């Protein structure tokens, strides 16, 4: 299978008073047209990994890698023009909270059209038709109203669906979803995940799903990477989660409270300093 994305020895360092601090320390993985989940707690470096793939490492951070290739294009040396042609068109990102990731002073329709305008040369009517089709594809029942609405007029779930529409309208090959459902209510989460599921399957996209929720990721993705302190501590197929080898993954699974009842007190994750080396 031809890899869509290849990452070898990705390192991201931020300067500090005591010298550079590496928040991502040598991450390797490949991604085909499949779903990869990256799971970790706060500080594990999972979000930074996602952003580095899109070249969005915030300054003064510095991302370096032995290989960072998307469909044959070397991303490490990419010029701003190359990035512009890639981002939004072939690689997209859905972020956590639509309150903060949608432009509050532009209508949804305008934001979607902007994404299209930049990457296509269709007439305005054709673009609008595509945008409306996309809004319907994310199960928005009244696409005309949402097209004309501002982000603050939409609920969290609708806003996130609008964000997904915006990011998928130009039919990218790779979608990075950074905690896309964490800010949503649990019933809405399921709905949004279903939409994402269908769209990704239909279009044959590669998906990187970044989350802190191990169970959710394993129920949604094909493969899972577990990150701790900037490193990948385990890589496994989602169906093999019960057979996880690394104590961190096992600990993470076991320390969650379960509706069906479980141990009381909850088994606490015993951190081993060796994991962070």
């Amino acid at each position, binding site marked *: 299978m031809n890899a869509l994305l290849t990452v070898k020895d990705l390192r991201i360092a931020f300067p500090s008073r005591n010298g550079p601090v590496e928040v991502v320390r040598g991450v390797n993985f490949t991604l085909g047209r499949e779903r990869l989940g990256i799971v970790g707690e706060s500080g594990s470096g999972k979000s930074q990994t996602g952003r580095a793939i899109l070249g969005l490492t915030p300054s003064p951070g510095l991302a370096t890698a032995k290989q960072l290739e998307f469909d044959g294009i070397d991303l490490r040396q990419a010029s701003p023009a190359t990035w512009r042609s890639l981002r939004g068109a072939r690689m997209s990102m859905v972020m956590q909270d639509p309150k903060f990731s949608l432009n509050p002073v532009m209508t949804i329709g305008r934001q979607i059209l902007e994404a299209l305008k930049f990457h296509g040369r269709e007439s305005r009517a054709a673009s609008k038709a595509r945008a409306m089709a996309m809004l319907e594809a994310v199960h928005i029942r009244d696409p005309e109203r949402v097209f004309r609405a501002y982000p603050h007029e939409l609920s969290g779930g609708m806003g996130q669906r609008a964000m997904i529409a915006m990011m998928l309208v130009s039919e990218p090959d790779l979608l990075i979803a950074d905690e896309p459902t964490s800010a949503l209510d649990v*019933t809405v989460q399921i709905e949004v995940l279903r939409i994402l599921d269908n769209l990704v399957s239909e279009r044959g996209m590669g998906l990187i799903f970044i989350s802190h929720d191990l169970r*959710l990721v394993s129920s949604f993705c094909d493969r899972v990477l577990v990150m701790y302190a900037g490193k990948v501590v385990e890589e496994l197929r989602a169906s093999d989660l019960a057979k996880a080898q690394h104590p961190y993954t096992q600990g993470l699974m076991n320390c969650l409270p379960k509706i069906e009842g479980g141990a009381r007190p*909850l088994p*606490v994750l015993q951190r081993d300093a060796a994991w962070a080396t």
Partner: protein
Amino acid sequence: MGNVMIDINSLDVTFRRGRDVVRAVSDVSFSVTEGECFGIVGESGSGKSTVLRAICGLAPATAGNISVNERQLSRPRDAAFYRSVQMVFQDPYASLHPRHTIDGVLSEPLAIHRFDRAEERIENALRDVGLGSDFRFRYPHQLSGGQRQRVAIARALILEPKVLLLDEPTSALDASIQAEVLNLLDRIRSERGLTYVMVSHDLAVVAHMCDRLIVMQHGRAVEELTREGLLSQSARTDYSRQLLAASKGYSASSPQQV
């Protein structure tokens, strides 16, 4: 055992701002016996946090009545109330004053209520929540989320209340830290015989901690369940069942939303 610690009857909380009327809580009733952990589950906008705030007096109860330990609550609440009911807030990054040291945070309630032996109480409080005395003179920004939440718990406990109101105490914490904090809360409740009212959107957390719970939606109490009822799938209303199913995680065959 079993005198009623908290009794809520037909509670209504309505916020009015000009012509906007928001009925955050409508006709909610429940009671909590002493020593019990009672859960309130709901999604955003369900009014669950507003119920807690109404108990404390932070939100106005526009109708219905609330009694704690068989006393009707005065408005505004009095000092005796604050010594018997305390609250732990959701966001550990927002519930500690950024310019006060931990020592300041813990000594203030003692100063307000004129407790004696303040030094001893502060040291004990920190130890009870698993923080060493190293932490006493640090500022909140030097602490992690889990440590801050422990300080918030210590602050709530330092006045030796009988009732602890917990507003999503672990939803802003990582899973591994959540386990530690939930265990801490469990231990403290059994050691001191406290009564808890815990609000959460996470059904698993509530099912783990609480003996009984109510499910709220759009300001109303939809259903009251026991832990066993929850586990045996005997939820009666559609919404409760939907919530239960959604809490189990995603599967391609999950039922469509109502």
